[in-house]
């Protein structure tokens, strides 16, 4: 066994904060995790004193929009990955709705190249390839070519596939390649273009609303297809109780579906769109307190497997318009862990679920590097100060996207270090 070259002393695991631990790593891999002070520190090892910090496996975000190539004024791969590191993410999956769309190897390769040049120590970038050519929903993208270039999933996110026959064929073809499909569930005929829930707020403000059933109908289609074909589907950014109920039933019947939700659906409701606040305009829209409760329960019981940010940066002038004109999306990489940690601190989410949904399940589902603190695992971990407070300001965010309804809020919990394969990416 090799000698430890990195030792983290005195941090605590989120699930057992009363029992501090020491972490030993060598050459970017985990050697051991032991009760604090029970094993000597080898000479020459780099020692990180981490008393009072939480030690978490690095977070994996399976759903971000990095806007490069094509919309670099909103975000670049460089700024996006900096934001990811600040948020505690070691693996980042970026969606294909760039301009041009990531539907060919050369685009994927360019993305990976930019990531390697700007962030050689990580976070690691894993592009998501387009499911259909140009995301147009008419013909399949060259899925094998995309896999060979480094794509870890396929998705039409941003422009969901309405044609169920085409979607079925895409699922079949992708499953041959062993790569999962991520679906943005939205019936495009039900309230096209809405960025607010159909409910009390939309009725009062005079805005076109998106009904929860517009999401659930497509969730149901996907669950039935997954079960019928026996192929996996990952359901992106689930926002409603109605969808949760469908997924729970489908999973009970053995449908190979997995699902994600985002922090903003857990902490905000449609009321955040009051006063036509375009920072809260997101698709799917923020819904009701009942939806929020259902999502939290679904995370706890495993109906929803994964947390993801759906980080969608936009320039401020793009959001500074009347509500109808504003683009959908919330910049979320840097606030994600703080706000979900607050849910843990308030007892609305268990620490075990937090670790599972941010760190373990996303890496499992998409076959990405995963640290379970066992010997040989990649030394991907973060040190999180759970009591430090910070205020969300434009300057505090490394992302170019300052579009968050949390702007100005004080949050609890700061990522002090983000190690990717034994090296701090912060």
């Amino acid at each position, binding site marked *: 066994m090799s000698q430890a070259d990195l030792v983290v002393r005195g941090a605590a695991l989120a699930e057992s904060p009363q029992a501090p631990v020491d972490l030993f790593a060598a050459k970017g891999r985990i050697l051991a995790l032991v009760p604090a002070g029970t094993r000597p520190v080898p000479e020459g090892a780099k020692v990180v004193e981490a008393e009072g910090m939480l030690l978490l496996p690095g977070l994996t975000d399976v759903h971000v929009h990095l806007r490069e190539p094509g919309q670099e004024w909103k975000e670049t791969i460089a700024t996006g990955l900096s934001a990811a590191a600040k948020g505690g993410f070691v693996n980042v999956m970026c969606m294909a709705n760039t301009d041009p769309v990531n539907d060919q190897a050369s685009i994927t390769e360019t993305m990976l190249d930019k990531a390697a040049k700007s962030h050689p120590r990580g976070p690691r970038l894993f592009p998501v390839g387009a499911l259909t050519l140009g995301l147009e929903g008419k013909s399949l993208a060259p899925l094998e070519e995309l896999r060979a270039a480094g794509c870890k999933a396929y998705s039409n996110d941003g422009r969901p596939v309405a044609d169920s026959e085409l979607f079925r064929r895409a699922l079949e073809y992708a499953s041959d390649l062993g790569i999962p499909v991520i679906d943005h569930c939205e019936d495009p005929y039900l309230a096209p273009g809405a960025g607010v829930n159909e409910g009390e707020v939309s*009725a009062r403000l005079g805005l076109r609303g998106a009904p929860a059933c517009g999401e659930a109908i497509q969730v149901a289609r996907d669950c039935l297809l997954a079960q019928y074909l026996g192929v996996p589907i990952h359901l992106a950014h689930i926002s409603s109780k109605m969808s949760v109920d469908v997924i729970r039933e489908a999973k009970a019947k053995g449908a190979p579906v997995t699902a994600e939700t985002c922090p903003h659906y857990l902490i905000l409701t449609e009321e955040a769109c009051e006063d036509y606040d375009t920072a809260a305009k997101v698709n799917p829209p923020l819904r009701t307190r009942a939806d929020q409760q259902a999502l939290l329960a679904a995370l706890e019981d495993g109906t929803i497997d994964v947390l993801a940010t759906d980080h969608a940066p936009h320039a401020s002038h793009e959001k500074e318009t009347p*509500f*109808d004109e504003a683009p959908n999306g919330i910049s979320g990489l840097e606030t994600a862990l703080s706000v979900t940690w607050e849910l843990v601190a308030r007892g609305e989410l268990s620490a075990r679920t937090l670790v599972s949904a941010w760190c373990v399940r996303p890496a499992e589902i998409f076959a990405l590097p995963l640290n379970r603190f066992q010997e040989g695992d990649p030394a991907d971990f973060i040190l999180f100060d759970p009591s430090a407070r910070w205020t969300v300001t434009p300057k505090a965010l490394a992302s170019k996207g300052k579009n968050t309804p949390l702007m100005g809020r004080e949050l609890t919990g700061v990522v002090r270090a983000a190690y990717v394969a034994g090296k701090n990416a912060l």
Partner: protein
Amino acid sequence: MTWPHKDLLDVTQLSKADALEILRAAKSFQEINSRPVKKVPILKGKSVVLFFAEPSTRTKTSFDVAGKRLSADTFSLQKSGSSLVKGESLKDTVLTLQAMKPDGIVMRHNMSGAAQFIAERLDCAVINAGDGWHAHPTQALLDAFTLTERWGSVEGKTVLILGDITHSRVARSNVHLLRLLGAKVRLCAPKTLLPHAVSTWNVPVYSELDEAVRGVDAVMCLRLQLERQQAGLLPDVREYSRRFCMTTARLAKAARNALVLHPGPINRGWEIASDLADAPESLILDQVSSGVDVRMALLHLYLTRKERKE
């Protein structure tokens, strides 16, 4: 008295006392409008921009007349044919308007919340002349004034709002204002033209007009847009008018001396039978006259607000 509000974006901003004060002021301007010379120097030297990003001849003319009778200088800015607003963001239009230093802006826009958007960015008074499906406060105030003229007060009266509620800023503002002033409100429309969450408004909703009209003191008809049929919300106009056209026979089921209103422009035979539109029960032309009275009152209150405070 001092007027507490910088802008009029929605009737929800007004207290009952505010609304009654506006109606009282409108009454005094009604007197001016019946004189042979209908001009007073109250707003001499003030400039009012009529910014209509969505065309509306009636509302714009009404504000124009109101402004001119108060001796204000009125300027029009329309979306069509104006390079100022073509392809330009609303924010840049606002900055341009600000640079012209107007005392007030009357704004019509096809997007809900647009009036609030500009009001937050301008120092001068902003009067919402209709934004998207959201609010049309001056219409609601003129409707209330028209009814008050007939009844003395709307308190205790029942008003039925009939037609396309979902897409109607007139309905949203009237539901709130009429109830604020003590009236009871009912709605009648096919489900496709009602907001899904209409139950949160806590007003009775009817799908049968014959039932809805029973015992009401006034029926407020809304304009039907042809595109609702094209969007699949209705079978066709003929079918719509079979179910929802206000007729003399249907009005006979209402309370004695019941009245009908319509914000105009009317589609004769669609929302309201032609003979009823011209009948003594119809307040349609009274609404137009009241519009000038109420808008004079509003321009007066909002544009002299600061001077009154001092």
